[in-house]
């Protein structure tokens, strides 16, 4: 076996419903009955992931703060209409995503249109026979560990991520950096799961090319 896949999701940052905790659905039922402490518990469970979603969509700490406040207040006001057909977290993410989109539109910074057409992002090249061409000669993954704290590498990462189309960047950040599931991202961004997977993979390929250039691949 040449290499092993990473089978654990990047979910070390998650803090949502934990084993042994009162389930979200029970807290929602209590909150719907007027228990503000139950609503506060839901806020505590979901605020960090909602913050990340808002931050990734708006690109601004200040906007993320406004989105977060608006989203939780909207959720509280709409709570009587929540029927539990979707997970509470998915419902909440959708509210926050809509709030972020409205804020971007007000600022005339609407994201690039979501499209099912794959964009021409930079990626590996192949020969007519389907082989990597040029083949990667340098395995810079070992040097990557040593350069984790390198400032120039940090700048290269920032520039590479900033160069992605909006929806590709958002999907990549939410999945690979923040640890949301494909389903959560699809629900929040109104995409299909295959569309999320496709954007994620294209974004990773484009970023790998850029970092390969940095490492002199």
């Amino acid at each position, binding site marked *: *076996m*040449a*290499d092993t*896949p*990473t089978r654990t999701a*990047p979910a070390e940052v998650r*803090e949502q419903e934990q084993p042994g*905790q009162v389930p979200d659905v029970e807290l929602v039922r209590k909150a719907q009955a*007027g228990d*503000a*402490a139950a*609503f*506060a*518990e839901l*806020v*505590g*469970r979901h*605020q*960090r992931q909602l*913050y990340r979603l808002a*931050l990734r969509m708006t690109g601004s*700490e200040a906007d*993320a*703060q406004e989105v*977060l*406040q608006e989203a*939780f*207040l909207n959720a*509280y006001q709409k709570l009587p209409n929540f029927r539990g057909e979707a997970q509470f977290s998915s419902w909440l993410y959708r509210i926050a995503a809509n709030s972020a989109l409205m804020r971007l539109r007000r600022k005339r910074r609407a994201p690039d249109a979501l499209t099912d057409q794959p964009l021409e992002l930079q*990626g*590996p090249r*192949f020969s007519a*026979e*389907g*082989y*990597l061409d040029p*083949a*990667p*000669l340098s*395995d*810079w*993954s070992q040097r*990557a560990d040593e350069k*984790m704290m390198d400032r120039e590498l940090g700048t290269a*990462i*920032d520039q590479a*991520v900033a160069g992605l189309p909006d929806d590709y960047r958002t999907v990549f*950040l939410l999945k*690979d*950096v*923040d640890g949301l599931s494909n389903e959560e991202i699809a629900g929040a961004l109104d995409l299909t799961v295959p569309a999320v*997977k496709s954007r*994620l*993979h294209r974004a*990773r*390929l484009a*970023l*790998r090319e850029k*970092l390969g250039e940095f490492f002199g*691949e």
Partner: protein
Amino acid sequence: MANPLEHCADCVELLGEYIDGSLPPERAEALEAHLSLCPPCITFVRTYKATRALCRHKLAREMPAELKSSLQAFLAKNVPGYRTPGDGGGEKN
């Protein structure tokens, strides 16, 4: 042992789902069989995974403490009966 994928292009196309552990087992075996025969693709997989690790390390963000405080203050003001963590409700960790 599954028949290896013939082309690097097929290997690269399936890499996202492979790395995420969501590729069906028979496709994963075919991809691994290709990797066992193709050093350039091994390098490609390693650098693909390193890309994700580097970005996660550089770009991970925690919710700032002051933002948590301002959110709690906002909700205490706007949600009737809302209790901040200091008086019994809110965040557990």
